[in-house]
């Protein structure tokens, strides 16, 4: 049986995977934001656990950064957005949920198989979780593909960033601080720009459905 560190990180990894599935199957925008916040909180806990057990001080900084950004700032921004756009209870789905979940299982099996040889190259205590991180990335991709509205797609994008961050911490004990800061800033600025973008989309098409963006000309 592996040590307590690995057990704890494995547990957090499985929680992240479950939250990815929950995001995939959730219909309501408000619940999506709650789940995303929860995912961020899990990420903070796993990074802190990793920092505590490996004694890498920069992981504490990145945990703090994740907390501020993904548990406080972005959910708050999203909340404000959905109140102002009045899409709190929006319900939408391209494929029905059981089919999406089955596709999700296929993706998980694919990711686990793919990650098995890669993770044997790593020396981290939590190398087994690389497959889970990869599965989370693919599930977020699937979420972005199956959603038609703008906000769930953005949440899918943010969830993918969470998963990539987790992959980095578990496989290599985190990226250099500069890179992490850069990514954090990117995500925040991207979020702000997309927020402005939502209003533009709605003004143009009277809805947040991204189908309208596929048309090339205005007014058929």
């Amino acid at each position, binding site marked *: 049986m592996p040590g307590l560190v690995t*057990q704890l990180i494995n547990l957090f990894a*499985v929680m992240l*995977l479950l939250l990815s599935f929950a995001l995939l*199957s959730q219909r309501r925008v408000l619940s999506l934001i709650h789940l995303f916040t929860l995912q961020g909180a899990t990420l903070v806990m796993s990074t802190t656990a990793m920092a505590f057990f490996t004694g890498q001080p920069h992981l504490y900084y990145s945990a703090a950064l994740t907390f501020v950004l993904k548990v406080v700032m972005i959910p708050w921004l999203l909340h404000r957005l959905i109140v102002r756009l009045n899409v709190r209870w929006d319900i939408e789905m391209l494929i029905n949920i059981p089919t999406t979940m089955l596709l999700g299982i296929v993706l998980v099996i694919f990711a*686990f198989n793919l990650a*098995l040889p890669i993770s044997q190259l790593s020396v981290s205590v939590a190398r*087994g979780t690389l497959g889970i991180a990869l599965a989370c990335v693919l599930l977020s991709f699937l979420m972005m593909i199956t959603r038609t509205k703008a906000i769930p797609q953005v949440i899918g994008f943010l969830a993918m960033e969470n998963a990539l961050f987790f992959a980095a911490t578990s496989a290599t004990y985190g990226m250099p601080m500069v890179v992490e800061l850069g990514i954090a800033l990117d995500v925040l600025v991207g979020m702000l720009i997309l927020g402005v973008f939502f209003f533009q989309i709605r003004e143009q098409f009277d809805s947040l459905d991204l189908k309208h963006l596929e048309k090339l000309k205005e007014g058929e």
Partner: protein
Amino acid sequence: MTFSSFAAQLLAIVVAVLGAPLLTGWVNQCRAWLQNRSAPPLLLPYRTLHKLFNKESIVADHATPLFRISPYIVFAALVLACGIIPSLSTDLLLAPAADAIALVGLFALARVFMSLAAMDIGTAFGTLGARREMLVGFLAEPALLMVLFNAALMTQATSLASIVETIANQEFAIYPSLAVAGVAFTMVSLAENARVPVDNPTTHLELTMIHEAMILEYSGRHLALMEWAASLKLFAYSCIGIAIFFPWGISEIDEPVGMLLALPVLVAKLALGGALLALIETLSAKMRIFRVPEFLAGAFLLAVIGMLVHFLLGA
């Protein structure tokens, strides 16, 4: 056949049969407290059973013998199921005869007879309830099997007794696969026991009923047996959950004295589990019947993920 295993088996069945209505009463009481209602007495289910056994059973004219015999079969199947589950001791007389898969089979037997009896009279609501029950059942059963396979995969045995012994004896560790299976199991047992997100056990609206619609035509001692069987099912599911996920305190083959300790431990665990069930029921709203397949597909998916994670992490 030794005397101790015979005694353990007898005690397990007696505790299940006599204790099951108490668990139902406790859950109802907790639920009433949480919902700010004045709580019914803890022993109300016993009084209901007593009342029903003293009443005359009315049976429809065109009912076949199947309708009369079904309550006895359902009750017997669930008593037997409670006998297989190692709730107090793993040293059970019946344990070598039936494993986890046979247990699921017993639940299926009870369900089939209950549904057939509901259809037998030919009333609209009975048929409706039976069809819904089969819909829930055929989705819940594979999910339950997958949960049990999770435990079986970890301990290399499908017999519940050896699963309990293996899990209780190994050194304590966090098993992500078991944690996921635990969530899946909770979802399955909510659906199987006609609890709130799927069905409301206290409803009076025929259109939303599942379990209640099937036993609408029963009265007197037949109804009493059906109600008792429902309590037994709740008890059985709680004991399976305890046996797989919190097996500490269940006595083993070499320690017959451990049974004395196992009983209070079981009561404490069941009290806690019942309070949790009441909490879940209070916090969630009943979902539309067409959302149930999604809910149970979710449970199945969780159980499958548990197995995949077991293969990936080896834990």
